[in-house]
């Protein structure tokens, strides 16, 4: 069976005003996503997660360009599609939830109008038909009394409800793929949990594939089937969630997992990764992580490691994965 989304060798660059400064925001990224599965993309701020999401949607800001690679969605190449066809795809077959769903609603229109808008744009529904669907969708995202809420304005709803409305807009046209770019960062913890629960229910009911972009490994462990770790624009490690958490092959992944604060941990200081993420416009030679890597070797300073298969469906870009037998890189 062919995957829903196949990304291979995808590179996106930001080019400076005079074409001199080239920033590789996304560099040689490959992954596949099956229908109904969830892929978590984790990484520090500035590691290129959001640029990756925007590249998939072909919504890059001016100054960014897709340098290489291919994005196949349901067997179709997205990178060569005309803009009009892309627009028909966005919101209909690929939906996206933005970083701050609280601000994603237009303050001047009722909730119903905003859900109906997507349906009217893509399905060419009548106003009445779109409103009926909107009411069903509000029910589907667990909003109580949808027939009352549908006529209300965003400022009359609580934060959690507004976010559910954004969720309802995202699933309005029955997309196959939902890209969620840090959808819960602006929410408090209890609402976060509810929202994640809701997303999972929606996913299960509708067989939706999700790309979940976050910097929260806890959320990844709960939500995702597979995880891809991004560092300086590259996927440094990817694989099934259990495998990555149990036996991370890349020192960066290991450090990320160790830096999760655990309840009952008696150590007085949190484990942090030494140093700062590199400037993506001036990456160090060799492996981009080597200046911060605790297990750095001479080879890492000169030569970038290739994408290696550590175990089935588990890949890592690290020289350690070559030198050690599969699984031995993990110590805990």
């Amino acid at each position, binding site marked *: 069976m062919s995957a829903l989304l196949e990304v291979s060798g995808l590179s996106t660059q930001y080019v400076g005003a005079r074409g001199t400064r080239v920033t590789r925001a996304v560099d040689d990224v490959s992954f596949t996503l099956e229908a109904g599965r969830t892929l978590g993309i984790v990484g520090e701020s500035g590691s290129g997660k959001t640029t990756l999401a925007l590249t998939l*949607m072909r*919504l890059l800001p*001016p100054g960014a360009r897709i340098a290489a690679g291919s994005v196949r969605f349901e067997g179709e190449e997205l990178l060569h599609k005309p803009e009009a066809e892309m*627009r*028909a*795809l*966005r*919101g*209909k077959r690929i*939906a*996206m939830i*933005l*970083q*701050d*769903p609280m*601000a*994603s*609603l*237009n*303050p*001047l*229109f009722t909730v119903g109008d905003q859900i109906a*808008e*997507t349906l009217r*744009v*893509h399905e060419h529904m009548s106003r009445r038909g779109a409103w009926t669907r909107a009411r069903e969708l509000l029910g589907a995202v667990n909003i109580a009394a949808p027939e009352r809420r549908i006529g209300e304005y965003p*400022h009359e709803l609580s934060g959690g409800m507004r976010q559910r409305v*954004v969720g309802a*807009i995202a699933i309005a046209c029955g997309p196959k793929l939902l890209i969620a770019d840090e959808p819960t960062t602006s929410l408090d913890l209890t609402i976060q949990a509810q929202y994640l629960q809701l997303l999972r229910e929606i996913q299960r009911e509708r067989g939706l594939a999700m790309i979940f972009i976050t910097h929260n490994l806890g959320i990844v462990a709960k939500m995702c089937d597979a995880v891809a770790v991004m560092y300086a624009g590259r996927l440094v490690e990817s694989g099934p969630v259990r495998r990555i958490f149990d036996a991370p092959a890349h020192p960066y992944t290991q450090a990320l997992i160790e830096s999760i604060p655990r309840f009952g941990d008696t150590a007085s200081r949190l484990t942090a990764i030494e140093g700062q993420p590199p400037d993506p416009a001036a990456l160090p030679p060799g492996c981009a992580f080597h200046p911060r890597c605790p297990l750095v070797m001479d080879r890492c300073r000169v030569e970038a490691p290739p994408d290696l298969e550590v175990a089935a469906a588990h890949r890592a870009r690290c020289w350690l994965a070559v030198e050690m037998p599969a699984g031995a890189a993990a110590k805990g």
Partner: protein
Amino acid sequence: MNGSRTASLTVAWRFASLRVEGFPWIPALILGVIALLAVFADVVAPYNPEVGVLGDRFRPPAWQAGGSEAHLLGTDHVGRDVLSRLIFGARVSMVVGFTAVIVAGLLGTTLGILSGYLGGWVDQVIMRVTDTWLALPALTFAIFLAAVVGPSMWNIVIILAAVYWTRYARVIRGEVLSLRERDFVRLAIVAGCSKKTIMRRHILPNVLNSAIVLGTLMLGVVIVTEAALSFLGVGVPPPKPAWGLMLADGKKGLMAGYWWLTVLPGVCIMLMVLSANLLGDWLRVKLDPQLRQL
């Protein structure tokens, strides 16, 4: 101590809320009366404003020695009734003021939205034209245009719109620049809306407030410019009664003591402009969502 502070705070709050919420009754009333007079000028005005009786020249207002009930506000140098001319002049000011503001508003808002949302070379072209336009002194530019197209009431409307659309374009573009970065616009983009849909459905309604407020403030400017053009003889052609024209006609009589020929239309212009501006100020505060209490 604490009580008195609370009390003074309450007073301050009252004062603040009075300023924000207090509907400007007097300006609204003045504008309302002028509008009614303009609409029903044919019924209200006692005389034909364009035909005078030469035997009745320079009659003072009724309350002055020599005035009569027949001409409440006196007559001008060709014996036309000043009151009737003021009433018909309101029609000219209203029609010119409102249509010019609306035409300029439509033009400026459209260009402002296109410029701000599309960016790139569209923005460059529109904004450079706007800059050039703004660099020309408004009145001189208007006189130049009037000299080119010739005097008529509708030409004045076109001239004023052509001169003042830039104000809208500037303000609206600025608003659009901040709106386009808002998340609901991004959501519309990821939901697959076309640029046209986004500009119409998400940008336009959000800048409408500013456009309306700017319109009320521009009303005063436009009316003064119309009066100035008429005063300079390139505006509404005589014998049509326009307030600016009446000022121009009356200025020769000022030294001879015929004060009513200049003061009365002057007062009319002042009242209308002041009312429009006060109403605009109130609207500006009222429509600003940050200052409005929900």
